[in-house]
């Protein structure tokens, strides 16, 4: 059982001392930095003791399960997770509740703002659905949805791509909105009943695999349709180098194509399947070490625009089962920065790391970062992940029990201060 639930406090002003502050190009040591939320009031003082002060993050791939099991996980829990992880905003894309008309968009916005505390202070953008009910019979009311500036683009959850005719019609109609289309490229028939990467480990363990071509064929179909219709597209949670190669080729042809890769796809490879631990049941699947290396290459050479959180709470009873019967998904917001920062900085430097975690996903979602939203971060202070690190009544993460190389010390977002 979780014993601790860090609470936050409202402090319109934060005074950070002895901090290495990000100035847009590098970290510079300052004796004191004064951050304000634009309101007058009491101030909190904090001695950073030389820790980094990083711009707060923007999370792609948020799904808080609401309102399916609001006894287990709510939007308030999701926002709590964002706060714990240093996220000032995110792109919400429910896999179960399609936002396919203006009423559903309003309902979704209300779920975030109705808690009276943090929800309304965070910059939440939404993916509108391009179909009604994530189906392939009717189009969603995209024009009406696009009138709201909280709609970043259109995508049907994390479902497989629809059949080619509906894909064409959806993009043809949605083109009028000028918004980007977001796809997790996955071909339904090639995915079949697979639950893990089709490779050496799945074959060794006799588990049903999802081949890379399930992704690349879907990506190619989307790209060819987008090229034909001249529609901007984004690929969510790319898992293999072959898809990144398609993105590179498309860009060379002048297409407006962006993509992200998942946090865990950069941290893990399919050797984790040997444990048969359902914590590693993540979709799209964690692929081979060679695929992971190819994703890192995409990070280095600029093909990858952002790192996705793919934050998915799963009920405890759906994870405490054998791998193949478990519900896929992992929490990531609370642990992302400590898990990935050092690796990112070693590969691409601090500026690009901040771009991948904050400015680039924010730009793609139409969010404008606020300079005073920051994370106080100790890159060399290890932290063992425990259940109470996670918000809500869930803790489904492959990092649970693992030691992360870094720690978040404190957060200051829109006047909310939280020390960890």
């Amino acid at each position, binding site marked *: 059982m979780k014993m601790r639930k860090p609470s936050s406090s409202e402090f319109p002003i934060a005074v950070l001392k002895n901090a290495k502050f990000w100035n847009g190009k590098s970290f510079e040591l300052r004796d004191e930095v004064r951050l304000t939320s634009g309101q007058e009031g009491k101030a909190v003082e904090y001695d950073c003791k030389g820790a980094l002060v990083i711009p707060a993050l923007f999370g792609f791939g948020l799904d808080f399960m609401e309102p399916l099991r609001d006894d287990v996980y709510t939007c308030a829990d999701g926002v709590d997770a964002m706060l714990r992880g240093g996220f000032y905003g995110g792109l919400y894309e429910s896999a179960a509740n399609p936002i396919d008309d203006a009423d559903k968009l309003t309902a979704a916005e209300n779920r975030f703002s109705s808690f009276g505390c943090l929800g309304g202070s965070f910059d939440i953008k939404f993916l509108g659905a391009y179909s009604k009910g994530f189906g392939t019979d009717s189009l969603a009311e995209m024009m009406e949805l696009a009138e709201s500036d909280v709609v970043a683009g259109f995508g049907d959850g994390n479902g497989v791509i629809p059949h080619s005719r509906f894909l064409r019609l959806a993009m043809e109609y949605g083109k009028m909105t000028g918004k980007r289309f977001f796809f997790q490229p996955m071909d339904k028939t090639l995915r079949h009943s697979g639950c893990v990467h*089709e*490779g*050496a*480990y*799945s*074959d*060794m*363990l*006799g*588990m049903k*695999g999802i*081949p890379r071509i399930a992704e690349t064929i879907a990506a190619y179909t989307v790209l060819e349709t987008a090229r034909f219709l001249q529609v901007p597209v984004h690929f969510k949670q790319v898992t293999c180098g072959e898809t990144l190669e398609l993105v590179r080729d498309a860009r060379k042809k002048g297409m407006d194509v962006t993509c992200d890769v998942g946090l865990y796809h950069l941290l893990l490879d399919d050797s984790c399947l040997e444990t*048969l631990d359902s914590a590693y049941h993540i979709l799209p699947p964690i692929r081979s070490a060679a695929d992971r290396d190819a994703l890192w290459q995409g990070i280095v050479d600029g093909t990858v625009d952002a790192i996705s959180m793919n934050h998915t709470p799963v009920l405890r*009873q759906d994870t*405490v*089962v*054998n*791998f*193949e*019967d478990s519900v896929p998904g992992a929490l990531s917001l609370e642990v992302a920065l400590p898990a990935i920062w050092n690796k990112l900085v070693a590969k691409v430097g601090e500026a690009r790391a901040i771009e991948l975690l904050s400015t680039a996903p924010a730009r793609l979602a139409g969010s404008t970062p606020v300079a005073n939203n920051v994370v106080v971060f100790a890159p060399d202070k290890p932290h063992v992940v425990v259940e109470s690190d996670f918000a809500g009544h869930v803790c489904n993460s492959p990092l649970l029990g693992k030691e992360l190389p870094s720690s978040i010390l404190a957060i200051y977002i829109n006047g909310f201060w939280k020390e960890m």
Partner: protein
Amino acid sequence: MSSLEIKHLFGLRGVSKHDIRLILDHAKQFREILERPVKKVPSLRGMTVVNLFFENSTRTRTSFELAEKRLSADTVNFASSNSSVKKGETLVDTLRNIEAMKIDIVVVRHKGTGVPKFLADNSNAIIVNAGDGAHEHPTQALLDMLTIEEKLGTLEGKNVTIIGDIRHSRVARSNLWGMSTMGAHVTLCGPSTLVPRNTDLMNHVTWEPDVKKAVANADAIIALRLQKERMDDALLPSMREYRNTFGITEELLENAKDKVIIMHPGPINRGVELDSDIADGEHSVILDQVTNGVAVRMAVLFLLAGGRNNENA
């Protein structure tokens, strides 16, 4: 050392030669006991074994049950078709409820890879895998190994060819791990849609697409059962074509050694993976496998239970 290094039997991958040798040697002793007029020993008296079968099984469950009874254990059969699993009970709840009845050993069969390990992680019982998905079926492989040793004297240096639906076969996986550990050369052969697509982690065995070449040097041939649903899933065109291409026939055996033995985990699709003439013929050791199944399962249960009352075995 006369006890097993393993605490449970999840599979044969990673199980040491010492442990496999110990199981096979004990199985040989139990095999002798099974030939006596009184076939029962008191080795597991006072212990309770639950046969937890979430998939249909006749011969494996019967074989385990017989092994348990021969060892004087109290046995309980638990089939998912008439259990609370049908009412939505989770796997771990099912196990904990059964465990609360003070059982000692759980023999489990389930469609999901890794279920035996999952149960071991969540209970104090000794877990024996009776088949988990397409992952492993270790006691089947052990009885296959016992049969080969019985008929050919040793596994060391012998050529064993497994033919059929390798991709979906837990029997094939357990055999390729176990037999390789014991020094046999394993060759796998099957239609390209029914063999694993990526064999990087199974490269200690030989993959031979030509069935005639696959049987040419074999000392033992194991034909795997072909599931009829493979035809519905477009993995094969027809039973007829499979029989003509990969079935064990008199004609195919003209390419094999004179003394080759033919094995099958059962139940046989006669006229598909194995012609009747072969299944009932001089090369067939299929019924010996069945008898050895009881002996091997007795050995596994006995050794995992700690070899208690060893002197009675």
